C-alpha cells in the first residue's frame, strides 16, 4: 500500500483550497487598505496565489504518479487505468473522471491567473479576487473533506482508496487487498483526439473566466467602460480556444463514435455550444463599444451570461440531473448540492452587482438607425442569443421537469430521442441563414459610412456574384429543399461579401483582416454542414426483404447489411466484400489476418506464422513476435467499383467486458468531395459455440479432390509426427497429421487434423478448423489396405459481420472552414493584444 502519495496529494488539495481563500482575502485587503499597506498586501496575495499554483501542480503530479505507477489501491487508478494501457493514454485517464477534469480546469485557471498578475498592473487586485474565489469553489469540488458535526461531505477527492470507494466483501476479509489490474480506460477514449480535446476544451472553459473577472472588477471599481479593453483580447482567445475544443470533440465523435456524424445535439455538446455562441455575441458588442461607445450595457449582460452559462452547463453535465437524457454525462458524485451553490453564488453576485451599478453604466443617447453598423451588430448579437436559447431551453427539460415537480406539475417533457438532431436543426438552420445574411451585410456598414443610395451600389455586385455561385452549387449538388437552398445562399453570400471586404481591408492593413477571415470560415462551415449533414445517406440498405414479423408494416426497412465472408454484395454502386478479421500490430502501419497468427500465453503478444505483407510491403517476418491490443478486432471490408478496388476499410470493434462490452468505431474512406463512413453494427460472437452440421464422411486417396462446404479440397499428404503443440510423444505412441488444402475464393487454406494412438489402444482425433470457410475436418481413420483415408467434415455458417455505411458529401469544406475560422480568430486576437500592450506601456 502506498499511503504516502495519496496523503501528500490530499494535503496539496487542501493547501490549494486554503491558499485560494488567502489570496481572495489578501487581494481584498490590497484594495481596501491605506496606501502604505497596499503593496505589502499585494505581495502577500501574490505569494498566496503562487503557493496555490504550486499546490495545484503538486496535486496533478501526485495523481499522475498514482496512475502511472499503477497504484490500484487508489480508486482513481483502478477505475480509469490498467497495466496494458499505452503511455500516451495514461494522460487521458487523468481527465476521464470528474475529479481529474475539475483538476485540469483548476490547473488552467491557476496558470492564467499568474499571467494576469504579471500583465494587468491596474486590474490585478480586483480581477484576482474574482479569480481566486472561483478557484476556491473549484478546489472545494475535489476537497474530499467531511465537515465534523455537520456530517457534510465537501467535494470528492481523487485520492480516495479503493476500499473506501467500493463496498466489496473482499475488504472485510483482507483490508490490504490490492487488485492486480485496473478496469481500464473506456475504449472510446483511447484515441489521440481524447488526449488533446479535453485540455483544449477546459482551457476554453478557464478562459471564459477572464472577461467575467474583468467585467466584475470594472463594475465593482466603477471603471464601467475601461474593463472592455483588457477583456477583449482574452475574450477572442477564449472563444477561439473554446470553439477549437468543441470542433475537436466533433471530429473525435466523427472518427470514434458510430452515430454517423460529428454532432448529435447531445446535452453535453449543447452545454458548451450555447456559452460559445453567447461569447461570440459578446465579442461583437465589445468591438462595437470600442468603436462607437454604444452597447456597453449589452456587453456587461452578455459577458456575465457567458460565465453563468458555463457554470450552468457544469451543473447540468456533472450533477446527474440529465439522467436518461444523455448517454455520456459524468456519473453523479453527490456534488449536485455543491455545484448548485457554485452556480447560484456567482449568478446572484453578478446580477446584484450589475443591478446596483446599472444606473451608472454610461449609455449612448445616439439614435440607432438602420444604416448604422451598430444596428446590424446588435441584431446579430440578438440573433446569436436566440440561437443559443433555442438550444438551451430543450436541453433544460430535465431541470424544468424537476422544477415542475416542486409545484406539483407532472411534466415529463423529453426531447424526441428518435429525431433529436432534427428537433434542433430545423430551428438552427434558419438562425444560421439569418446570421449569415446579417453578418454578410454588416461587413459593408462596418468599414464604410453607408446611406440609402450607396447601399444598393455596395451590395449589388456581391449579391449578383453570390447568386451565380449559388445557382451553380444547387444545380450541381441538386439541392431542392428550401431550407438547404436558403442556407447555401446565405453561406455563399457571407463568403463573397467578406472576400470583398478582405481585399479592401488587407490593402490598408493586413492586421485588420481577422474579422473578414473568421466570417469566411463560418460561411464555409455552414456550407460544409449543409451538405454533409443534409445529404448524408445510408448506402448499406438491406434489400433481402427478410423480416422478423409479418405483422409489421412494409416500411420496416433496414440500414444494415449482413456480409458473409468472401460473398460479394452490391451497395450504392460498389461491390462490397468482407475479407475477415484482422489485428493491428502496435506501432506498425498495417493489419494482420487472424489466420496468420499464433497466440501465446500473453494475450498481448502474438507470433506471425508467415511473412506478412500489407499493401505489398513486408511488415513482419515469419516467426516474428509482435504486440497487439487483444481488445481490438478490425474487420477488413473491400469496396470495388467496376472490378477495381476502390477502397479497403478496417472498421474496428473493441471488446472490453469491464466497460460494458462492445464498442464499434468507424473507418472512413476520405475523398476530396465526400467521405464514405463504415462501421460494424454487429460482429460475430466468438464466445458462443457455433452450430456445426452433422459430420459427413469422405473416403479419399491422396491427391484426390473432394468437396467441403462447396470448396474444392485435396488431401496432399499424411505424415508421422513426434510432437503435438510442443508436447513430446512417447516412443510407442503413433501420431499422423494429414495436410488438406482447401481452395477458397481468394486464398488457399490448410487444415491439419491429427490422428493419434496412445498406449497402443487409445485413439484420439484432433480436428482442424478453417475459420474463414466455416469447415472443420477430422482425420477419422486410415485404411492401409486400400491406401484410403476417412475424413470427417463438419460445416457451419460462414463468418459474417453486419455493417452500416454512410456517405457524407463535402464534409471537408466543414473542416476547411474550421481552419479558416481559427486563422481569423488568431489574427483578430493578435491585433487586440497588441492594442492593449501599446496602451499599457504608454
Amino acid at each position, binding site marked *: 500500500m502506498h499511503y504516502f502519495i495519496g496523503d501528500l496529494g490530499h494535503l496539496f488539495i487542501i493547501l490549494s483550497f486554503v491558499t485560494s481563500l488567502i489570496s481572495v482575502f489578501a487581494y481584498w485587503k490590497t484594495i481596501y487598505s491605506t496606501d502604505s499597506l497596499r503593496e505589502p498586501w499585494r505581495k502577500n496575495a501574490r505569494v498566496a496565489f503562487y503557493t496555490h499554483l504550486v499546490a495545484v501542480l503538486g496535486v496533478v503530479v501526485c495523481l499522475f504518479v498514482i496512475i502511472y505507477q499503477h497504484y490500484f489501491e487508489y480508486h482513481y487508478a483502478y477505475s480509469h487505468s490498467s497495466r496494458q494501457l499505452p503511455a500516451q493514454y495514461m494522460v487521458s485517464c487523468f481527465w476521464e473522471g470528474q475529479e481529474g477534469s475539475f483538476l485540469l480546469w483548476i490547473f488552467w485557471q491557476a496558470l492564467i491567473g499568474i499571467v494576469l498578475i504579471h500583465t494587468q498592473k491596474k486590474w490585478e487586485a480586483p480581477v484576482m479576487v474574482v479569480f481566486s474565489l472561483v478557484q476556491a469553489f473549484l478546489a472545494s469540488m475535489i476537497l474530499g473533506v467531511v465537515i465534523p458535526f455537520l456530517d457534510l461531505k465537501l467535494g470528492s477527492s481523487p485520492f480516495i482508496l479503493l476500499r473506501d470507494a467500493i463496498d466489496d466483501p473482499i475488504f472485510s476479509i483482507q483490508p490490504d487487498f490490492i*487488485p492486480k489490474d485496473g478496469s481500464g480506460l473506456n475504449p472510446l477514449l483511447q484515441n489521440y483526439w481524447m488526449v488533446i480535446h479535453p485540455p483544449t476544451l477546459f482551457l476554453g472553459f478557464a478562459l471564459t473566466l477572464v472577461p467575467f473577472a474583468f467585467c466584475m472588477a470594472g463594475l465593482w471599481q466603477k471603471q464601467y467602460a475601461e474593463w472592455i479593453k483588457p477583456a477583449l483580447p482574452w475574450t477572442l482567445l477564449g472563444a477561439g480556444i473554446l470553439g477549437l475544443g468543441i470542433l475537436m470533440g466533433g471530429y473525435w465523435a466523427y472518427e470514434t463514435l458510430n452515430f454517423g456524424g460529428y454532432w448529435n445535439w447531445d446535452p453535453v455538446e449543447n452545454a458548451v455550444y450555447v456559452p460559445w455562441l453567447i461569447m461570440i455575441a459578446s465579442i461583437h458588442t465589445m468591438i462595437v463599444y470600442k468603436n462607437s461607445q454604444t452597447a456597453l450595457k449589452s456587453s456587461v449582460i452578455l459577458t456575465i451570461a457567458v460565465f453563468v452559462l458555463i457554470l450552468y452547463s457544469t451543473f447540468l453535465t456533472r450533477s446527474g440531473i440529465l439522467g436518461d437524457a444523455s448517454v455520456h454525462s459524468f456519473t453523479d458524485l453527490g456534488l449536485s448540492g455543491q455545484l448548485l451553490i457554485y452556480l447560484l453564488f456567482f449568478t446572484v453576485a453578478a446580477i446584484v452587482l450589475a443591478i446596483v451599478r446599472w444606473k451608472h453604466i454610461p449609455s449612448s443617447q445616439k439614435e440607432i438607425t438602420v444604416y448604422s453598423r451598430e444596428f446590424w451588430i446588435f441584431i446579430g448579437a440578438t440573433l446569436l442569443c436566440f440561437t443559443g436559447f433555442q438550444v438551451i431551453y430543450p436541453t433544460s427539460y430535465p431541470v424544468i421537469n424537476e422544477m415542475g415537480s416542486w409545484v406539483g406539475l407532472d411534466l415529463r417533457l423529453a426531447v424526441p*430521442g428518435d429525431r433529436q438532431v432534427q428537433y434542433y436543426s430545423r430551428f438552427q438552420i434558419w438562425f444560421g441563414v439569418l446570421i449569415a445574411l446579417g453578418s454578410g451585410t454588416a461587413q459593408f456598414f462596418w468599414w464604410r459610412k453607408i446611406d440609402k443610395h450607396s447601399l444598393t451600389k455596395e451590395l449589388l455586385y456581391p449579391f449578383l456574384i453570390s447568386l451565380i455561385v449559388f445557382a451553380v452549387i444547387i444545380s450541381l449538388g441538386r439541392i431542392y429543399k428550401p431550407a438547404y437552398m436558403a442556407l447555401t445562399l446565405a453561406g455563399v453570400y457571407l463568403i463573397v461579401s467578406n472576400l470583398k471586404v478582405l481585399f479592401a481591408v488587407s490593402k490598408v492593413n493586413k492586421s485588420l483582416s481577422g474579422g473578414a477571415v473568421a466570417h469566411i470560415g463560418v460561411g464555409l462551415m455552414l456550407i460544409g454542414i449543409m451538405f454533409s449533414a443534409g445529404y448524408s445517406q445510408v448506402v448499406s440498405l438491406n434489400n433481402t426483404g427478410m423480416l422478423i414479423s409479418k405483422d409489421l408494416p412494409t416500411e*420496416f426497412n433496414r440500414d444494415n447489411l449482413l456480409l458473409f465472408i468472401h460473398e460479394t454484395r452490391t451497395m450504392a454502386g460498389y461491390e462490397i466484400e468482407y475479407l475477415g478479421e484482422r489485428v493491428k500490430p502496435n506501432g506498425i502501419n498495417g493489419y494482420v489476418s487472424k489466420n496468420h497468427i499464433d497466440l501465446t500465453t500473453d494475450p498481448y503478444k502474438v507470433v506471425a506464422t508467415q511473412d506478412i505483407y500489407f499493401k505489398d510491403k513486408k511488415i513482419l517476418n515469419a516467426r516474428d513476435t509482435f504486440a497487439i491490443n487483444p481488445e481490438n478486432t478490425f474487420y477488413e471490408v473491400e469496396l470495388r467499383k467496376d472490378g477495381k478496388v476502390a477502397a479497403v476499410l478496417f472498421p474496428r470493434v473493441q471488446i472490453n467486458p469491464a466497460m460494458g462490452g462492445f464498442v464499434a468505431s468507424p473507418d472512413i474512406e476520405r475523398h476530396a468531395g465526400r467521405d464514405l463512413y463504415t462501421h460494424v453494427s454487429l460482429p460475430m460472437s466468438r464466445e458462443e459455440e457455433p452450430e456445426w452440421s452433422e459430420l459427413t464422411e469422405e473416403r479419399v486417396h491422396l491427391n484426390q479432390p473432394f468437396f467441403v462446404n462447396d470448396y474444392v479440397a485435396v488431401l496432399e499428404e499424411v505424415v508421422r509426427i513426434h510432437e503435438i503443440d510442443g508436447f513430446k510423444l512417447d516412443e510407442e505412441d503413433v501420431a499422423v497429421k494429414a495436410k488438406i488444402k482447401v481452395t477458397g475464393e481468394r486464398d488457399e487454406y490448410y487444415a491439419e487434423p491429427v490422428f493419434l494412438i496412445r498406449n497402443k489402444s487409445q485413439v484420439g482425433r484432433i480436428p482442424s478448423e478453417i475459420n474463414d470457410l466455416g469447415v472443420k475436418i477430422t482425420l477419422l481413420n486410415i485404411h492401409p489396405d486400400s491406401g484410403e483415408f476417412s475424413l470427417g467434415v463438419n460445416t457451419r455458417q460462414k463468418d459474417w459481420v*453486419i455493417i452500416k455505411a454512410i456517405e457524407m458529401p463535402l464534409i471537408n469544406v466543414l473542416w476547411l472552414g474550421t481552419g479558416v475560422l481559427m486563422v481569423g480568430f488568431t489574427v483578430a486576437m493578435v491585433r487586440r493584444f497588441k492594442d492593449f500592450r501599446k496602451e499599457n506601456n504608454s
Partner: protein
Amino acid sequence: MKKSHIFALVVIAAAIGIIIANTGDASTYVSFDQAYQMASNGNTTKLHVVGDLKKDANGNIVGIEKSADKLSFSFILVDENQKEQKVYYNEPMPPDFTRSEKVVVIGSYQNNSFVASKILLKCPSKYQEEKINTSSL
C-alpha cells in the same frame, strides 16, 4: 414608447415563441397504455416508454427473438405499470443489450405492435464499477 421598449417586447415575444414551439413539439415519457391510447386516436407522434426487460423467476431475460438474418429483433418490455409489450426494432441487437438495467424505447404503436425507432440503454456498469474483479488474485 422608446425604441428600446419595442425591442424588449420583440425579444420577449420571440422567446415565448421559441418556448411554445419547442414545448409543443416535445415528446413525453408515457406508459404503454397511454401510448396505445394515443395511437388509436390517430396520434402518430413517437413517444418515450421506460421499462425493464422481462425476466423469468431465475432472473434470465426472456422473450428476445432475432430475425433470421440478425438484422432486426424483438423483445418484451415491462413498463412502470407492469404492462408487458412486445417491441420491434429494426436494427441488430446491441451486444450489451441484455446487460442493461433500464431500456428507453422511442416509437409508437403500429397496429398492435410497438415499433421502436430508437432504443436507449442504461447500463449501470458502463462507467462506474460497483464490484471489484478479484479473479486476478
